[in-house]
């Protein structure tokens, strides 16, 4: 039954509220993103105007960070599953590590030290991502996970958009007060950790038998205080009458054993395959600016455009994913991205074309980012949500990193246009392959059910 969750939506329609835990996690992400984006927004300014350095050596550690970040995410996911689901603890460590970094920014006056502080900050990000997504899936009724992840991503993106505004308000009030920006950012980050500690419940996964919550009218359920946001259902029962969870925490072998699950293997493979043909944001913006003859000073606005449409569409598309099929929407999202590539390559230039590409790019994120996490949740047993989320997320992230390297090389060899055309062709092929692979999965499930 676990794969059928997307077709069970009709039982309670769309009226189910988003669980308090998801809202709390969304608030934590929102606050944390305000904090981290405050720093990101003023960092170049601080380096050039405040420290008088040229930031070109700054990306030095970027490659290393990407690799380490991927490993940290896997470790974070697995650690969170061990010892009776320590998701909150591991996520808290991740958020805490990033919060601790902020005061050190006040002391870092050279590029290598700054890079090191940022590397630790991103280690925290890697550590918390998988446990957080696991908590969202565990707290949410399977049929509504798409919307829950949509709400979370929308709140997260709201924070990312508010951060720079907060940073520039502080800079405006203080005239070059970068230390004040970092201090305020540290306070905000601490608040994020505190909201996590206070309002995110520690136990999300207590198996209480295979209750079908969709058959339980909301009014008959016991009132849930914030102390006990504990969903009365088994989120991911692989077999309906599931035996009590074994006391043994998932071992590393179990985590690796996740790959033996054909459904998860297919999803990971498809996410990675499509990730291999997903051009990184910076390359896309660069191409968009060049192909579209966009004035250079508008360049910094391009990521804001994508984020705005991501924010607007994350919830509706998440809810749509619950109604149709998450995998189908995930594929459709990549179709939208393909349209965007086509538009960049088309002879249609000018501002309306640029806006259209940003709409498509934001839609792509809204249709794939939280939706993939929701789809992952359905194919991983509850006690291994952390490792499962990490596996798919890391697979996708590493594939995108490989794509960046390859795209850079292709651009050098053939020029940007041809590189994008080749990538678009690759994306089209990958999407067809992924459609076949993921549909096979659906059929198998139906067979299993039958």
């Amino acid at each position, binding site marked *: 039954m676990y794969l059928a969750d997307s077709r069970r939506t009709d039982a309670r329609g769309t009226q189910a509220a988003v669980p308090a835990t998801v809202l709390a996690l969304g608030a934590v992400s929102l606050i944390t993103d305000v904090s981290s984006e405050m720093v990101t927004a003023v960092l170049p300014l601080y380096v050039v105007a405040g420290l008088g350095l040229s930031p070109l050596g700054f990306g030095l550690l970027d490659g290393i960070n990407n690799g380490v970040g991927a490993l940290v995410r896997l470790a974070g996911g697995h650690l969170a599953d061990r010892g009776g689901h320590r998701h909150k603890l591991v996520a808290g460590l991740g958020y805490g590590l990033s919060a601790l970094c902020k005061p050190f920014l006040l002391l870092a006056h050279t590029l290598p030290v700054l890079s090191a502080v940022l590397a630790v900050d991103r280690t925290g990000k890697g550590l918390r991502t998988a446990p957080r997504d696991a908590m969202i899936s565990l707290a949410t009724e399977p049929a509504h996970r798409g919307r829950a992840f949509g709400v979370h991503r929308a709140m997260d993106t709201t924070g990312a958009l508010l951060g720079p505004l907060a940073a520039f308000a502080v800079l405006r009030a203080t005239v070059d007060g970068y230390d*004040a920006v970092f*201090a*305020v950012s540290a306070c905000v980050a601490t608040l994020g950790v505190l909201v996590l500690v206070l309002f995110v419940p520690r136990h999300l996964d207590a198996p209480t038998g295979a209750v079908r919550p969709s058959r339980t009218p909301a009014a008959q359920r016991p009132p849930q205080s914030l102390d006990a946001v504990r969903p009365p259902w088994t989120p991911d029962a692989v077999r309906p009458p599931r035996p009590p969870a074994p006391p043994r925490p998932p071992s590393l072998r179990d985590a690796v054993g996740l790959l033996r699950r054909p459904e998860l293997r297919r999803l990971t493979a498809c996410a990675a395959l499509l990730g291999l043909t997903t051009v990184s944001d910076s390359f896309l913006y660069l191409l968009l600016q060049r192909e579209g003859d966009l004035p250079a000073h508008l360049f910094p606005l391009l990521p804001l455009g994508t984020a705005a449409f991501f924010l607007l569409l994350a919830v509706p598309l998440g809810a749509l994913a619950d109604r149709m099929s998450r995998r189908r929407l995930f594929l459709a999202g990549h179709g939208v991205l393909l349209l965007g590539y086509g538009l960049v390559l088309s002879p249609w230039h000018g501002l309306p074309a640029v806006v259209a590409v940003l709409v498509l790019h934001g839609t792509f994120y809204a249709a794939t980012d939280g939706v993939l996490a929701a789809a992952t949740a359905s194919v991983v047993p509850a006690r291994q949500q952390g490792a499962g989320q990490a596996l798919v997320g890391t697979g996708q992230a590493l594939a995108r990193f490989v794509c960046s390297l390859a795209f850079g090389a292709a651009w050098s060899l053939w020029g940007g246009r041809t590189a994008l055309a080749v990538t678009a062709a690759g994306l089209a092929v990958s999407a067809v392959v992924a459609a076949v692979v993921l549909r096979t999965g659906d059929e198998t499930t139906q067979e299993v059910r039958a």
Partner: protein
Amino acid sequence: MTRTTRLVTLLVAVLLLGAVGAGAVLHAAHRSGMKDEQQADGPTVRAGTVSLRSTGTRRLLVRNLAWGPHRDEIATVAADDPEGPRTSSGVKCLRFHAAAGTGICLQAVHGALEDTYRAVVLDSHLRVRHRFPAAGIPTRARVSPSGHMAAWTVFVSGDSYAGTNFSTRTAIVDTRTWAIDDNLETFRVVKDGRTYHAADTNIWGVTFADDNRFYATLATGGRTYLVRGDVGARTLTTLHGNVECPSLSPDGTRVAYKKRVKGASPDAPWRLYVLNLRTMKETATAESRNLDDQALWADDHTLVYALPGDYGSDLWTVPADGTGTARRLMRSAVAPAYL
């Protein structure tokens, strides 16, 4: 914990953290207020008229960093008395350069939500002749010896999410026609005699030989090169490796530049070198400290550059031939230009 306890805890934390944050902002605001009052031991700065025309006596123009009401304004001092009284123009620039009656001033425009930047071409009375929007934070500016061409470099960070990769944009404008090349990355790169394509090229630090030829830094594949540029042919030709922020001597024979030296501390890798363009022989200057600036030639034998100081930065000077020692030229100043 009950729900009430949690909410009260949160409220107390918000108040405490809010107080810390507000304290940091107020402290920084107070400090910026202090910067508007003149330091007791600082240089004398007076408001006055600054002209970019030659006046018979040689003058040094800088962005004045001394605390007081004229902080960040372009100011002028007598070239032979750099620590003497400064005359401040009222024009604020982050970076500045001038030659032959033309000035290029890179400014921040403080918006409601965000700072934007622009490059302003100034006439000899520091009046605005033309404004160009700039894509990011200003770092280098130069005017050609004739005053006809101006170039500037800004830093752009395009990727918003945890992006620590910065790139540069360099623009060149002809002040006679206002024709602009606003991204030198579109020039054809000729490396080792062949056309070279790369997505990761960055170009910065233009220094003009005349109104058509210039030198600059090109970075690609993790290495930097000295390139010779040709505005008319729209080409950049690599000449030498490991050269950043070149500065051409007045006689056109040598380039002073930042070189990444082996064995130096990784957070301070750059030393000031001079390259002879005819022999391609490199000479280390007597300045042994790390340097992150585009040096300026005071004459054919002397280099001027900025190093971090008590108030932003100070200007230092060292002989170009590797002899002598570095000495401080003036305090609290950056972005020098001789007229």
